[in-house]
């Protein structure tokens, strides 16, 4: 702390604002990083963490605000400059060359040591040099091992060693522990602490909040693109941190739902579902008519895998049983799932939800083409009828477009999502899976989509609402199932639902 006065900050960001068409990703965010500090950055999905980091990396240029590095103001930051200023970003992909060994990955991009007066690489010197560096960092990995044979934790260590080898002074780590075991996390933390002790500054992004208390000195909380707080970790506890992240949000965004509304018959029963790859283990639940069942968890917890599996586009179950309308259900393809009355609003809207260069009406009838075919042999579509239906849907869902013939890629995210919903509403599916339906969508469109989902449920469909946004889950679900590492850890009924409660279950609080 005493250093602050005498030394300039390593990084100082003031009033950073960055907008994208339709959304403000960062609004007046201040952030500072001291020398040798481990600073955690937390917030829900869409809070603005990754945008802020990308501004720092020079990938996004900021709309306004100042950035000073080592006290020197930086006008226009490019990725090259960020690299030259010693900033190193390690993402989950790690960016290692899988075919190379540890030593070659560590020198990647830097000059290899060469034999005197030749262009030939001095392999022995390289291995020795890298071995010394690893030893210095307390990493016991043979530099000649192939990185493919390393565990994920070891790969992280190699990525960190590589950042230091190339004279990195600021390390930004994005979710390093999401796929690590407890012991591995411990080793990784030892390494990060050792780096900080030598003066490297670390920005640590994680969804695992308990780790932040273990590792970081300070934490900055972002929410909806704004900074909520920067605090010393010692001044906070877990539930206060969660409260800062969740905050209070106006409730009118969500429709009113009675706690004990009557449900209909059971649509889907899942018993003891287990997949071969271990992503899901012993999952049991049922969805009834008129019910909105939320499914959530942290990154990689299994909720996305569950949605894919139910729609026939994911892994195969090896154990357990699924019954759809009391008949065995084992979808092998999406086509079979649709034939049984399933629908999916996928998370990747642009790549999986809509066909961007097709017109609006074509997208709307896509899942129910057969109904519009005049002649079964040529497959000619009754275009006038299809367009009329599409226009009805546009009106019903208030889709803003120039007409039924507009190409969907030119619509806003919210309107694209409504097109996807319209596609399924046309068939009134038995069970509709909606996956992250409001990601990257503005608030008013969100409210409309919540309304549509509820309306569909009121008409008798079952809804599986897969999302990682705890507030919307609390806002619109009748029940929420929380998964952690493929296992069901909570089944929360309506009257127990709150963003706070769900998040605690996600983190195992």
């Amino acid at each position: 702390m005493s250093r602050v006065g005498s030394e300039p900050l390593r990084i100082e960001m003031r009033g950073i604002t960055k907008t994208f068409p339709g959304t403000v990703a960062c609004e007046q965010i201040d952030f500072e990083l001291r020398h040798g500090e481990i600073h955690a950055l937390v917030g829900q999905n869409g809070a603005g963490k990754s945008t802020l980091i990308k501004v720092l990396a020079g990938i996004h240029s900021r709309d306004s605000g100042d950035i000073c590095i080592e006290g020197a103001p930086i006008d226009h930051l490019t990725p090259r400059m960020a690299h030259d200023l010693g900033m190193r970003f390690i993402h989950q992909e790690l960016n290692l060359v899988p075919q190379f060994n540890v030593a070659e990955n560590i020198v990647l991009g830097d000059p290899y040591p060469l034999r005197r007066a030749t262009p030939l690489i001095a392999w022995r010197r390289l291995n020795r040099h890298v071995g010394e560096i690893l030893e210095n960092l307390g990493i016991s990995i043979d530099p000649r091992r192939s990185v493919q044979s390393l565990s994920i934790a070891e790969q992280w260590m190699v990525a960190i060693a590589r950042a230091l080898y190339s004279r990195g002074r600021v390390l930004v780590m994005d979710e390093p522990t999401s796929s690590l075991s407890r012991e591995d996390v411990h080793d990784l933390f030892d390494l990060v602490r050792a780096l900080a002790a030598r003066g490297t500054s670390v920005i640590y992004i994680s969804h695992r909040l308990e780790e932040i208390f273990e590792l970081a000195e300070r934490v900055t909380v972002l929410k909806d693109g704004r900074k909520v707080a920067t605090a010393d970790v010692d001044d906070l506890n877990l539930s206060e941190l969660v409260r800062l992240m969740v905050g209070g949000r106006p409730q009118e965004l969500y429709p009113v739902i009675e706690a004990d509304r009557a449900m209909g018959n059971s649509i889907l029963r899942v018993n003891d579902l287990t997949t071969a790859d271990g992503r899901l283990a012993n999952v049991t639940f049922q969805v009834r008519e008129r019910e909105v069942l939320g499914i959530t968890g942290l990154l990689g917890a299994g909720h996305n895998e569950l949605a894919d599996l139910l729609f026939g586009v994911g892994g195969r179950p090896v154990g357990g049983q699924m019954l759809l309308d009391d008949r065995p259900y084992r979808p092998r393809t999406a086509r079979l799932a649709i034939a049984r009355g399933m629908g999916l609003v996928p998370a990747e809207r642009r790549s999986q939800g809509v066909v961007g260069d097709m017109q609006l009406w074509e997208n709307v009838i896509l899942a129910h083409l057969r109904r519009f075919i005049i002649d079964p042999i040529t497959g000619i579509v009754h275009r006038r009828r299809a367009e009329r239906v599409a226009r009805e849907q546009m009106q019903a869902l208030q889709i803003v477009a120039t007409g039924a013939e507009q190409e969907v890629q030119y619509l806003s995210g919210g309107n694209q999502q409504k097109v996807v919903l319209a596609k399924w509403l046309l068939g009134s599916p038995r069970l509709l899976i909606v996956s992250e339906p409001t990601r990257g969508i503005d608030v008013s469109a969100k409210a409309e989509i919540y309304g549509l989902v509820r309306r569909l449920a009121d008409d008798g469909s079952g809804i599986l609402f897969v999302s990682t946004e705890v507030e919307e889950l609390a806002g619109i679900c009748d029940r929420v199932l929380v998964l952690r590492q493929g296992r069901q850890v909570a089944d929360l009924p309506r009257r127990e639902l709150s963003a706070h409660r769900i998040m605690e279950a996600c983190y195992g609080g």
Partner: protein
Amino acid sequence: MDRSSNGRVLTRRLEYFVLKGGRYGTVLGLLLLVVVFAGLKPSVFPTARNFLNIFNQISLLGICAAGLTICLVMREFDLSVGAVATLGAVLTAGWLPHLHPMLGVLAVLAVCAGIGLINGLIITTLRVSSFMTTLGTMTVLTGFSYWYTSGSGAILYSGIPEGFLRVGKGAFLHVPYIVFFMIATLLVLHVLLNHTTTGRRMYAVGGSPEAARFGGIPIRRLKILGFVLSGALAGLTGILLVARLGLAEPTIGDRFLFDSFTVTFLGAASIRVGQFHIVGTLIGTLIMGTIFNGFTLLDVPYHLQLVVQGAILIAAVTSAGLWQGLLLSVRLRSVRENPRGDTGGQDAE
């Protein structure tokens, strides 16, 4: 309990076999071919003379395929190698009667390297796929070669200096000069790819473009260099073709496209499975040469040779894919049995 531990031992053995055994499939195949042909034609096939003959026959293919290997290392295609070889041949036959041989050869090499440079520049600066770009240059060059030879009845053969032709036909200690060209080329490129910064960075570009980009590796420059080398070596192939045959015509290099791809992909199924490398390319070239030679000795008709060539390529490439798939499923299974992260069989050996 007992059953599952049994299963694990089996799994480990399978993994061992897959890891260590699968990589040598093509080498074993090559040895098998040699044994079979030697058995069928014991008096002709397994003789020093015939083996020298095989090497003589594959030399040009080896040179051309080595150039292609560099592009493939960076996961780029060069479909123009055959057409560049043709261009090199017709230009050699067309220019050598009028120029000093050394100057003429250098000029041809420069033109062919220039074609590679154009390929590389289009691919890296205009960001067109290498597949389409080189398909385009291939067509243009083929057209050019037809036009260039059309004045002389499509075949150029007159006035090529004797001294130049001796390069193609002569031998040192019974080993044809051309074989030395191949050996030198393969050696230089092997060292380049495996023991120089440039070569290792080429592998980094192919292995993980993202990692290469974040590491500040000059990807575009390396790719351009790869296409230049590929063009120059295809040109050298064309030059040596003329030296050997004493003539050039506008389809003379066509086969080198298909054959180069066949042998490089056979090579990628060898030893370092899934990676292109010069040793693999040499193995692939030897397989091709042995098949061609053995079939000729056995009087197998040409059309059947083509059928076998294609079938072998598909078999080698799918088996490499199959092996990798098996490997993956073995790893997955060991992860499932042992989710702590200890990868079981891997470090057992």
